């Protein structure tokens, strides 16, 4: 899942980026409002984490400009302003959630994941596809009641395919939602990770879970 973090206080920016990446997110980061707007309007982020007091352009301005351009991405506002009026202003301008500094990192993660589930209209944090079970909250995966050990990249790929289970997911979609803007990975890295994932979640005696749709992408789910 791909997240944009717009926060100008460097210690917070650095630690959040690190924490989110370790939690399996692809994170683009900027500390400037105008740059943040450019990022937000040129990529399809699953969640945008937005500070309000920013150099260049303040967060509320960024949010309303972005919404005016038709961007429907989920936005979580992160700010030290805590009055009810501040929250109302933020939510009225189209924010989806509001978190007051200082906050627990776990809470930020939980809220970001809740917004992600809303992005994909998935209220249930448990996804089941045949014998495969994904817990979106704890990021654990089971196959036939056996827990699988996945790397964070593999998990992120499986989670994205799982959230869009039954749909054809293109390589570009995967690339856009799992890889950061300045990622140096080449595009065939998607195919490589699909290979890793297949080895871990498929059994020779069962039909394949990930199917390749030639020229279009992949589908997670048993053969209909």
């Amino acid at each position, binding site marked *: 899942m791909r997240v944009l973090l717009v926060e100008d*206080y460097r210690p917070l920016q650095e630690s959040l980026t690190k*924490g989110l990446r370790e939690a399996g997110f692809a994170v683009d980061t900027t500390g400037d409002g105008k740059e943040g707007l450019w990022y937000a309007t040129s990529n399809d982020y699953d969640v945008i984490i937005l500070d309000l*007091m920013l150099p260049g352009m303040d967060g509320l301005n960024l949010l309303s400009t972005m919404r005016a351009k038709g961007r429907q991405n989920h936005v979580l506002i992160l700010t*030290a302003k805590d009055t009810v009026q501040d929250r109302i202003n933020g939510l009225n301008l189209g924010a989806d959630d509001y978190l007051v500094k200082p906050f627990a990192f776990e809470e930020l993660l939980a809220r970001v994941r809740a917004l992600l589930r809303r992005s994909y209209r998935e209220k249930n944090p448990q996804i089941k596809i045949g014998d495969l079970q994904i817990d979106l909250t704890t990021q654990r995966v089971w196959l036939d009641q056996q827990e699988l050990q996945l790397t964070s990249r593999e998990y992120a790929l499986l989670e994205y395919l799982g959230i869009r289970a039954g749909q054809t997911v293109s390589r570009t979609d995967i690339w856009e939602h799992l890889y950061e803007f300045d990622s140096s990975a080449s595009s065939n890295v998607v195919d490589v990770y699909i290979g890793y994932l297949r080895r871990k979640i498929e059994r020779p005696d069962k039909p394949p879970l990930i199917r390749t749709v030639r020229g279009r992408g992949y589908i997670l789910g048993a053969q209909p």
Partner: protein
Amino acid sequence: MTHSLRTRLLVGIVSGMILLLTVFSILIYTLTHRALVNQFDASLLSTARMLAASVEQDNEEVDLESSVQEMPEFQKAEHPTYYQLWNDDSTVVARSPSLGTNDLPRFEGSLNIPVFQAFNMNPGRPGRAVGFKFKPRMADNEGTNRQPPAKARELTLVVARDADDLQDNLEFLRWLLLIASSGTITLSFLVAAFVVRQGLSPLNSLATEIAAIKENNLTARVATEPMPTEILPIKERLNDLLSRLEASFNRERRFTSDVAHELRTPLAGMRSTIEVTLTQIRKLGEYQTALSDCLAIAVSMQTMVNNLLTLARIDSNQLTFRKDKIQLAELVNSCWRPFSHKANARNITFENRLPAGLCLNSDPDSFSIALSNLLDNAAEYTNQGGQIWIEAHQTNDHIEIAVANTGCELTDDQVSHVFDCFWRGDSSRTDTGTHCGLGLALVQRIVQALGGSTTVEVQHGRIFTIRLVMPI
């Protein structure tokens, strides 16, 4: 002295009433007393004149007409009239039957001039008496006795009468006045109490209105209409005071919320750094990086808290300043030292143009805090490869110190805010948290507390100068 307005008004009104009524009662009593006595005396005198007219001298013989003597007035037992008539040789010519064998006191004025006296016939029975001398009428005995007429004698007549009625009337008057006065005083007390209560009721309603103003809602104002003109000024002053208080509380609230904001952001950074670091077991180097990040945050928060405390202490006059001789050039060098590394890293040159030996008499601790903040600000906002310089000149009674730096991008409007707490020209120039916009505010407060003043200007569009004018 009582502090209740109502009691003071009541006491004033009622004691005024008592005084006036007493004076009027005494006046009325005195005048009535005099009138009644005069009337009594006049009646007594007319009886006495009638008696005197009934006295006849026949040669040497003096006689009172018997018909007069027999008048019931002089006979009756109850409240009779008394008279006694003396010859000029002090023999008693006649006395009223009512006197029995008693004598009236003998007194007289000059001829035909009556003298009045109080008199007690019996104990407890006050009366009044009139006495005068007169010459009796000569008997007309033509033809019978042709003797030369005798010389008229000078007789003394005293007529007295019990004044019970007079005394009763006067006593009645006394009681009447006493009762009427007490009644009036009691009634006036009640009326005054009512009027005072009514009159002071706007004060009560004012008190109720004021009591309704809560400390957490200073936007409330006291209604000024309808209002007696005497209380209107109080209400207006009160509303003025409330407005000033509200403005001051709002400033305070904004300041507190700014402080909270400025402390929350670094706290969030520190908490997030620690929490993310603790999510998994890490290499030693990562812990070291996290710890040094947290240390940097802690140090900047400490600086901010110190600045806030200094500001608060200046504002509440808790700081005491001593006066010492400050060698300005030396102080500038020592204040610059902590920032020289940061400036060198960005190729900024610093020039201390202060003449050696220039001295200022001021508080060294506070003044060096102000100077450090000025230099810190300059080092932070000067452009890459720019310049900072400090110069000073002395006049008769003050020293003007100017700290200037290149690379200023502030507009005139922005420049007017540089001394405001928590104001930053553009936070893109620096990290949130490390410079929270207190430095120049602190400089201004310190300089003002030391008796000086600060001004700021931007020259040629790019040179930012802050001038301190300090008393020597």
